């Protein structure tokens, strides 16, 4: 079969289960396409030989009862993988090989999937364009010189370019949904506490959440079903009843109340985004949903709040990268000198910027004015959503305020870069699930996404709405394999 890599996850699973395809055939196809796609720079670390071996082993004794039988996949390089280098896109972990496996990836391997390699990302997941990676920027398969979004840029690029049938990313302020939107793919940020953070290189602990990225909603649902488990090794993991998201997936969303928050009509938002949103509302109506205008009054404060909370936690989380125990080290005259040299050379500019911001907002004399106030505002933002969910079942917004931008376009303007997260950040602050689905194109033909935000622990509802709308939207990605010579 020549078109293996064009198949969705569900098709591949069906074909492997029906013995029409072997794991080896599938793995070989994705490995070959990945090898031909080096220009995208989606991978940081390739593990193709091992993947092919594992596929062979799987085929010798295939367990077809598994949910991801012999399915190859690459994952964001923020997940620790046993015996395979894990860098978090940073020089400081350039040589780091974990002896342990993250819970989320372990769940995936337990269901029969096979690791192909580690995907590029912004350094420590700090970025919205994948340009902060020590391993270079990633090309968006939509168009050369276009960013794939970030921080899960390698992941979005790899899924859109069909180098991997599905993948996982992490989302602290939009790092799954924004790159999904930029590449015409589907990305789900689950409820905080749904997927274990054990073994994921931490950025901002109270916001970080792993989630699936795929070509379509159904694949996303299946992967979410696999990765979402209660884990005693993560004290913030929540023990709630998880659905069989893919089995329970339905397009029947008749009578669902969908809220449209007026505060998301931000100043200077391109008309294309406004139009996309309007179209989205019509699609939702077509599916039988009821549209209700709502207000999330503290939306304006979400971005500044996020850029206090996230750097504060990051400044502390990244203190462990000090050159003492593992990872990159520059020798120094004394301990302090070694710290300074190691961290100055080991961290990139954006990471250093956020460590500085975080250190500042936690400093004595500034703590109350910044960190404490931000925590209070965070509570107000969460209250906004709680109030809204008294009236509606889900909320529909654009995923991003623009389509993908050019590589280098915003690198010297961090604030304009941060503004990219304006629609996604409130969801992380409130710990809610959100999904981005491709919903149209802008004038340049670049994909645009819509975001559906749900109630906590109700991933099923937003997957259903996304699934129903996906059919009406009938999105087609314009990818011409320009990078394959």
């Amino acid at each position, binding site marked *: 079969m020549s078109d293996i890599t064009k198949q969705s996850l569900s098709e591949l699973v069906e074909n492997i289960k029906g013995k029409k395809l072997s794991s080896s055939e599938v793995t070989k196809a994705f490995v070959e396409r990945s090898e031909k796609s080096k220009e995208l720079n989606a991978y940081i670390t390739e593990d193709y030989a091992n993947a092919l071996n594992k596929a062979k082993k799987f085929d010798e004794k295939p367990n077809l009862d598994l949910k991801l039988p012999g399915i190859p996949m690459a994952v964001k390089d923020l*997940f*620790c993988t046993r015996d395979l280098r*894990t860098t*978090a896109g940073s020089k400081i*972990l350039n040589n*780091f090989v*974990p*002896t*342990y496996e*993250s819970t989320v990836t372990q769940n995936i391997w337990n269901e029969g999937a096979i690791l192909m390699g580690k995907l590029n990302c912004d350094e420590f997941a700090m970025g919205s364009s994948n340009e902060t990676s020590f391993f270079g920027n990633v090309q968006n398969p939509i168009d050369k010189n276009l960013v794939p979004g970030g921080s899960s840029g390698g992941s979005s690029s790899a899924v859109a370019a069909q180098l991997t049938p599905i993948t996982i990313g992490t989302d602290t302020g939009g790092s799954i949904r924004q790159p999904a939107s930029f590449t015409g793919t589907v990305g789900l940020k689950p409820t905080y506490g749904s997927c274990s*953070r*054990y*073994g*994921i*290189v*931490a950025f*901002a*602990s*109270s916001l970080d959440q792993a989630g699936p990225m795929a070509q379509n909603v159904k694949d996303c649902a299946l992967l979410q079903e696999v990765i979402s488990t209660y884990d*005693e*090794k*993560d*004290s*913030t993991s929540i023990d709630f009843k998880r659905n069989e998201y893919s089995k329970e997936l339905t397009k029947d969303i008749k009578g669902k109340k969908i809220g449209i928050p007026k505060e998301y009509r931000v100043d200077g938002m391109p008309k294309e985004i406004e139009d996309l949103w309007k179209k989205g509302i019509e699609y939702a109506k077509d599916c039988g949903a009821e549209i209700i205008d709502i207000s999330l009054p503290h939306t304006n404060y979400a971005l500044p709040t996020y850029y206090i909370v996230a750097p*504060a*936690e990051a*400044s*502390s989380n*990244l*203190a*462990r990268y*000090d050159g*003492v*125990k*593992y990872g990159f080290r520059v020798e120094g005259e004394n*301990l302090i000198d070694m*710290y300074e040299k190691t961290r100055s050379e080991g961290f990139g500019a954006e990471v250093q910027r956020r460590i500085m911001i975080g*250190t500042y907002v*936690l*400093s*004595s004399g500034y*703590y109350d004015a910044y*960190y404490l106030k931000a925590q209070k505002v965070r509570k107000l933002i969460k209250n906004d959503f709680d109030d809204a969910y008294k009236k509606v079942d889900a909320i529909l917004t654009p995923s991003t305020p623009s389509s993908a931008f050019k590589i280098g376009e915003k690198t010297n303007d961090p604030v304009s870069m941060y503004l990219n997260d304006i629609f996604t950040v409130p969801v992380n602050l409130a710990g809610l699930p959100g999904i981005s689905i491709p919903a149209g194109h802008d004038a340049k033909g670049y994909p645009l996404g819509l975001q559906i935000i749900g109630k906590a622990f109700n991933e099923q509802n937003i997957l259903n709405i996304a699934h129903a709308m996906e059919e009406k939207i009938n999105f087609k990605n314009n990818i011409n394999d320009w990078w394959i010579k």
Partner: protein
Amino acid sequence: MSKNKSEYLINRNDNQYEVVIGLEVHAQVTSESKLFSTSATKFGAEPNTQVSLVDAAFPGMLPVINEYCVKQAIKTGIGLKAKINKRSVFDRKNYFYADLPQGYQISQFKDPIVGEGKVILDMQDGQKEVGIERLHLEQDAGKSIHDLDPKNTFVDLNRSGVALMEIVSKPDLRSPDEVNAYIKKLRSIMRYLGTCDGNMQEGSLRADVNVSVRKKGSKEFGTRCEIKNVNSIKFMQMAIEYEANRQVDLIEDGQTIDQETRLFDTKKNETRSMRSKEDAHDYRYFPDPDLLPLEVSDDFIENLKSEIPELPDEKKKRFIEKFKLSPYEANILVSDIETSNYFENVIKKSDVKLATNWIIGELFAALNEKNLEITESPISAGNLSKLINLIKDGTISGKIAKTVFEQMMEGDKDPKKIVEEKGLKQESDPKALEALIDKVIDDNRDKATEYKSGKVKLFGFFVGQVMKVSGGKANPQLVNEILKKKL
């Protein structure tokens, strides 16, 4: 001179200064595993053999609270008669050091697990109450070893992540003696509870000592200095004495005291400045987002209360009331749970008064000489009880008992057997004694005559002779009676 005999004051140029002391005691929680990981906590293990990925702060590793340590902290709080906070929060204390792998210590800053409590001290001139400000749980750091290599520092992470209780006293202590009593009492309470072994040599108990001085009668506190990480009571006392005098000298010299952190140099017996207030770390405390607030229910606390054993204060009261011990005796016997257990085992089957004297007297002296703890006593409580019964029922004299006791110290032998084997049984048969006495009088006719003619001092001579002839076994009381009659 002060009115109160035990008052500790420093005199300079007609001025009297009072010393104000507060302690921050770091007590290692007795627990098989660490506060947030499953690594072992055994003392003296090979370096870096008790370190998990969490303790070494590997990427993506997360802390999970050890419920047992929480219980231990709450029990200690109950022992300190303190308020137990049903909701407490773990914070990160951020600073860089080679033996702090995370780059922060998980501690409790704003909301500790235990609030205000108190400790009662028995001082020579009566009881003194010392207030407890708070008790919180925190991680210990690893150990930096600077003397193994001229250029490099080695790091041992075995201690990294071990659970500590920081017990902060109010500034209620006024003398090195009170500090001694306070530490001992705290240690005693925790050993009763089994929450900290109190072993200062192994670093299970160490303290930061806050010292300030003020003119006697002043209500204002002086500027304090904190002496870091002092690991023996003796050093604490020496450090306080030095530091208080240093501060008094400064004041008398018209200078001011800088609030600072100081180190105690045990070799030179002096404190030295470590860092001033201006150089103090900004620890950037904030709630650890990897951990949810710690919430405990009333039932959880009540269950722990039901596990609390009788504590030293209550035990002392019972010993005085029930066994009619003096406060002094009771204090000694309850100071250590092992001692009080031993005592209670001995008196199960023997006389309380004799038991008290023998334990506080002979046994303590003998153990002290051999440098043994009560738990290592060669004489079991059961056998000491038998020995006391042999004295009580007149089988042996107190003097013989000491001989028997000495032999028991050589190895835990049944005193009855020793008495039998060595033929040490007291001669209490009046007929046998009469015969013995008759012979002694017969052999010393001249002395007997002298006695009768008024030289009564010779009575002692006869007693001695009888005891000598009997090999010390004659019942001295009977010997007295019969001799008086015969002479």
